[in-house]
Every structure is written in C-alpha cells, then in structure tokens.
C-alpha cells in the first residue's frame, strides 16, 4: 500500500511516499481502508520531532473509512462498516490497523470526509467547551486562531452555547470566517495588540476563559486578560511551546487556573469516546456544525499540505485523500 513515512524528523520534506505491506490486524484490531485522513498541527509536531515517537513513523492521527479485516477477538465492528477514529499515528496511508475499541461507527447523515475532518478537531472543541471549562451562556471567551481547524468549530459551538466570543485571527479573510462562525468580536492581531483590544472590549474586566492553541506568543498576554479566578486553557502550541514559568504569576494575575489538556484524556474510556464523537456527529447531522473542508490533497502531496498549514495559509480543515 502507499503510505507517507518519516524516516528522520525534520521539515515537510521529511515525509516521503513509500510502498508498504497492507497491515494485518492483531487480535484486538481492525484494518480500515481509508477514505480520508485529517491533517492536524499535531502531525507537524511529530514530523519535526517536537513530540517524540520512534522512526520510521507514518504520521496522521485521524481517519475514516471502511473496515476490511477484523482481528480474532473483535466483535464491536464488522467488515464493510464505516468507521472513524483518532488514535496514535498511521493515518497518512491507504490502510491502517487500529484497536477496535477506538473505532466509532459513522452514522447516516455524516460523510466519511466529514468524520475524518472532525474526529480530532471536533472532539477537541467539544471537550474544551463542555468539560475542560464548561462554558455557559453569558460567559466571555477569548479564542485564538479562531479560523483554524479547531477554532472554527470552537467558535460555532461556543456561539450555540450563548457565550460572548472574542476571536483573534491574522487576516481579513479569516476574520470574515470567524464572524460567520459566530464570533462576536474579531481582532486582527497582526494589526492590533489583542491584549489592549480585549481589555477595551471587556471594559477592563477581562474574560472568563482563554482557549489557546497558539502558546508561546500568546500565553502571557492571555494571563493578563483573564478576570480573577478565570482559566487559561492551553491546548496547543502552534507558535511554540510555552516555556516553564513561575506559578506565582498565576497568583499575581488573579489566582488563575491553568490546564494543558490533551484529547486522549477526554476520551480515555470507550464510553466517553462514543459519547463525545456521537455528540459531534449529531451536531453535523443536524446541520448545527458547518465544516469547511476547502483543502483536500492527494496523499502524495502531504508535504504541500504541511507547508500550507504551517504557512498559516489555510482555514478550516485539511484532508489527505489516499
């Protein structure tokens, strides 16, 4: 089968197309023929070695397709079923072997591409808003990278909840998208200091929560913008990892909460995985969540996909089609 492989961590050129045997399922696994795999910033972190995994590795943590083989002990899925998953690595390929207890069935009303586009990012937006900091009607949230993959979903869901959303983006085009998704205020951080502007927009009171996937360049200002006892939800680091900091700063800035969540800990049990993916699929099927899948690339063009993502040229979801 064709697959994208990283033999040595590095830039986008580290990803090479190779021919590998189609995997055989272990007793607890199923093999899926991928219809689409989702591209996520976390793929970049593995490719460049910021997150560690043994090489050679096949990047990609999100996929959807049809079950073509099941292991001896698998009873939860059958050949021919449409399934989706987000799991450790291996999705930039034509086939993937995945632990069966990590597979969820894709319901009618949701396409393979929609499923591949939302497993990781949709469930991320969901857990952030419903569990990490349960956002309530009337809360004010600051959302960075609001036109990104997670961003657009986060803004739509937060809008549905009835929170006031202050979004930051880098271009006018992205600002339009964020507004369209339901952001109440949009700040072009490339033109304006988002700290000063958010203070102005909140009459100096600050926001209840910051959802920050950008990290290094936004963290400190985010702390300045939280109202006392507010929460910094640091769920990514696209500008770089936040370096170690003196926790007394949290006290000085208002006895703040900090959390650095990761999706795996919010779908740790099968029960939670099924419930969370079900909630996201439900929103898609009901038309409540609009997905932007503007950028689809053939599997062979994975390098270009990463360049586009890292160059911040893209909005919404990027998919690789084997």
């Amino acid at each position: 089968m064709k697959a994208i492989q990283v033999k040595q961590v590095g830039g986008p050129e580290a990803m090479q197309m190779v021919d590998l045997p189609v995997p055989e399922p272990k007793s607890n696994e199923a093999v899926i023929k991928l219809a689409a795999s989702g591209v996520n910033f976390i793929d970049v972190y593995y490719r460049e070695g910021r997150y560690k995994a043994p090489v050679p590795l096949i990047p990609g943590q999100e996929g959807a397709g049809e079950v073509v083989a099941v292991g001896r002990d698998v009873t939860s899925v059958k050949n021919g079923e449409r399934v989706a998953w987000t799991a450790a690595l291996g999705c930039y390929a034509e086939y993937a072997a995945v632990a069966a207890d990590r597979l969820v069935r894709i319901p009618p009303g949701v396409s393979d591409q929609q499923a591949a586009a939302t497993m990781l990012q949709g469930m991320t937006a969901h857990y952030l808003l419903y569990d990490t900091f349960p956002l309530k009607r009337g809360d004010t949230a600051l959302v960075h990278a609001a036109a990104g993959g997670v961003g657009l979903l986060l803004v739509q869901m937060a809008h549905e909840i009835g929170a006031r959303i202050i979004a930051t983006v880098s271009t006018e085009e992205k600002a339009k998208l964020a507004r369209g998704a339901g952001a109440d205020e949009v700040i072009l951080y490339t033109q304006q200091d988002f700290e000063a502007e958010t203070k102005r927009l909140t009459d100096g009171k600050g926001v209840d929560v910051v959802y920050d996937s950008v990290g290094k360049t936004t963290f400190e200002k985010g702390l300045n913008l939280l109202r006392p006892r507010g929460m910094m939800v640091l769920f990514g680091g696209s500008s770089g990892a936040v370096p170690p900091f003196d926790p007394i700063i949290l006290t000085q800035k208002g006895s703040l909460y900090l959390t650095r969540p990761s999706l795996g800990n919010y779908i740790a049990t099968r029960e939670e995985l099924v419930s969370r993916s079900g909630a996201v699929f439900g929103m898609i099927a009901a038309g409540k969540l609009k997905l932007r899948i503007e950028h689809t690339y053939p599997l062979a063009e994975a390098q270009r996909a990463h360049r586009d993502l890292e160059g911040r040229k893209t909005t919404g979801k990027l998919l690789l089609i084997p």
Partner: protein
Amino acid sequence: MKAIRVEHIGGPEVLQLVDVPIPQAKAAEAVVKVNVAGVNSIDTQFRDGRLRTPVPFIPGHEGAGVITAVGPQVKAVRGGDRVAWSGTLGSYAEYVAAPEEHLVPVPHSITDDQATAAMVHGLTAHYLVNDAHKLKAGETALVHAAAGGVGLLVVQMAHAIGARVIGTASSDEKAQLAREAGADAVIIFTRQDFEAEVKRLTAGKGVDVVYDGVGKATFEKNLNVMRLRGMLVLYGMSSGAVPPVDPAKLSEKGSLYMARTTLAHFTATREELLARTSALFAMIADGRLHMRIAKKYPLADAAQSHRDLEGRHFAGKLLLVP
C-alpha cells in the same frame, strides 16, 4: 504604643519590640485596639523578604479587637464595634489602622481568639473547599499539613462535606489531631513516601483534588497522585516556592488542572468577605468548626512565635496578645 517592627529583613530576631505613636485613621480607615493578633506563615515570608514590602514595617495581617476611632468617610463600622480583620499589615501592635472594608463584625457567640483564628486560616479553608475546588461528597481530597492552621480546618470542612480525606503530617501527634478532625487516613510523610501511600490508598486511581500550602517539597509528587483531570490547588509555599512549571507536564500527567491562589482574590468584595466570615463564625458558634489555638504569646515574644511556626513545633493557631 507597643509594636513589633522590622527594620531589616531576616530571621525571627529582626522582630523587635518598639514604642511608636498610635496610628491615625485615614478618611476610610478605623483605628482598632488589637486584643489578639494572629501569626501566619505569610508573616514569616514578609519578615525574611520572600515577599516584599518596604522597611521598616510592622508585620501581621490579622487580628480581633475593638474600634476606638473612625475616619470621616467610614460608614460600615462605628467606635466600640467588635471586629476582626485580615489583610491589614501592622497587626503585631496594640493598635492598628485598618481600611473599613477589611473589618468584619464579630458576634457575641465567639471569642476574640476564635475570630482571629478564623480570619486568614478560616477564610482560606473556606475558599479552598467552596470555590477553588468545590469539594463534593464522595470525592477524595489530599490535604497536606493536615494538622496545620489551615489544614485542620480544611480537614473538618472536607469531612463535613462527605469527602474522603487523606492527610499528611510530620508526626504521630499531628496525625492524631488530623484524624480527630475527620481525616480518614493520615500519612506521616517523614516515615513514608506519600506518593506511594496515596496510590495504595486510592487503588492507583489518584485523588480528585490536592490542597497544598507546602509548595516546593510536595509539588512533583502531587502531580503523580491525582486522577485524570484532577485539580491541584496550590495556596501557599511554606517549604519554599515551587520552581518554574512546564505546562506540558500538566498534560503528560493526565490533563491536570492547577490553580495558584491567594486569599485576596476570594474576598475581593466586602460582600464576599462577609459571606465567608458569617458562614465561618456560624460554624464556630454552633460547634461544627473547632479552632485549635496552639499557643498564645505576649507581643514581646513575637520572635519566639516565628521560631515555633517555622520549626513546625505546634499544631494549630499561634496568637500574639498585645
């Protein structure tokens, strides 16, 4: 009037008894005759310079007494009122001038000793279990320094809420006090590794919340004893400041939450302060909350009180009597 003054920061010996003028009330202040002043860990931190304030200064943030004079703008209190306070520097003295918003009325049903002990320690315990992490029946809480000033109160409150309480303490005597206060299990950390023991006591699952006023000595292990998505409430640093924290650690150890809190943010309005003190005084008056007074010193012996506090000799509140 007699007062304890710090001319240079340093060890307990820098607490010198001096004779200084009785303070005058500014427009929104009242002068209070101090009946009892509370000794707190934070006093030692101002005395030795870990926390900064210009010298010379009179230490002490807490006490109970009677109002002898009010400034022209004061509305909330009157001469003759029996009051208690926290947050007003200058309490190690016969008189202190305090902003009116710090002064809370003390009911007849409780003593000056109880009122004083209820201020910094009581307010802290109250905000910890009601707000920093709202403790629920059935949860498991790890309470460090469970026989300390704040610790004994957190244990009592947590027990009353119906939580399972695991405490840590440095001796058998202190462990016994913590057990009497309602702790279900107490780990004598000088003999046992609290990390291993907490894991054993929770069948490997970890606790829901850690209430920690110790800081440096316990931080790393705290991250290892919490369940997935558990909460670390860091409210003090009696063993020293926690070194810089890498947010990625919070993710790695289970998408943990951390708050680094201080009392001021939980008593930011007079309304909030009075709500807490009313609740505390009521609990004390009807016997639900027991304030353990470990020792009372004449004002002149303030240095000894700091030696005793830092040497962790006593369990319970230390008081100074001018």
